[in-house]
């Protein structure tokens, strides 16, 4: 598998930043499956587990997102496992604003991967 350039942002990561910003403007944060649903809007398949969580993990390490586990009591009262809640950081917003113009706004291929 080819190594990516340090600091390079993949199309799916731009898509995550875009979808994440949309979600957090209404709910304050977003979690994995909700993000997969947003990325799948328009009839695409849900993003694969590995693709989604690998990207989220890398973006968190790169400082584009922050992640924290939901309060256990909220999850317990809702009768579901705890969600890992993500928010797009200032660095993420800056990276999105510097997205190369040539790249498409939404990559259908990455959403299907």
């Amino acid at each position: 598998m080819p190594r990516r350039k340090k600091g390079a942002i993949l199309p799916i990561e731009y898509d995550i930043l875009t979808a994440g910003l949309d979600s957090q403007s209404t709910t304050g944060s977003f979690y994995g499956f909700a993000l997969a649903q947003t990325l799948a809007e328009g009839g695409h398949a849900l993003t694969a587990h590995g693709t989604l969580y690998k990207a989220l993990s890398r973006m968190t390490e790169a400082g584009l997102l922050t992640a924290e586990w939901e309060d256990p009591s909220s999850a317990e009262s809702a009768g579901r496992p705890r969600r890992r809640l993500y928010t797009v950081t200032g660095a993420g917003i800056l990276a999105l604003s510097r997205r190369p113009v040539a790249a498409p706004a939404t990559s259908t291929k990455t959403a299907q991967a």
Partner: protein
Amino acid sequence: MTPVERAQGRVLRWVDRYSKGLPLPVAEERRAELESDLHEHAVARRDELSPSALAREIRGRSLRGIPADLAWRDREMRRFRAARLTTMTPSELRATSRLQHLLYIAAGVLAVPGFVVAVRIAITTNVGTPGHAPGHYGEPTQAVPVFVAVGVALAAVAFLINTSTRAFGVIALSISALMLNWFVFTSLSSVSYQLSMALVWPFRTFHLPSIAVYGYFLPGPLLVVAFALILGRIHRIERNPAQPDEAGAEQ
């Protein structure tokens, strides 16, 4: 158990498998995130899809993500090993170094005689001699795969030097060993015969099928097993002693 529950169980077993050997917090975090995803997925889609279609969708998401899962594991494992090197005891460092040198020696043992044999095959030709048929022993082109196997053994050394690519080095060594086993022994039947005789001597089984099996097929696979054992031993030493063997599988 419903089809959805079976699919969820399979996904979580796969998570346990690819996160095995990683630091426990990393493995636990990945499992918890997938548990949440699987739950949310089932809740969100249960009214839209039949149980079997939902199970298929869950399995599909998991299957399509396998390359990314393995790439994630590889990245986490490299990071863990790099950190582990700073906490190893002197005896662990010595043991790792010895095993690493064994792999270098193996690469040399494959590359040097392999090169000599390749040159010998290349310059010893029976072409034009009475009874020679095209494609039989004595064609200089038979040296090409042997040279390739030597090149693979040398490439293995380059991979072995770096901890993060060591497993690739062992794979390259194994390929080289199998190639040399096959191409050298089929080109030099006398070598194969002598080795076979040495191997069967303790068993006193001097019949031709045994000689053919031992001589032609056994040395390469034996080396592959030896390389895998050495790599496994290095990995066991490098694994954090405080970490259980089945990381993440006990939740």
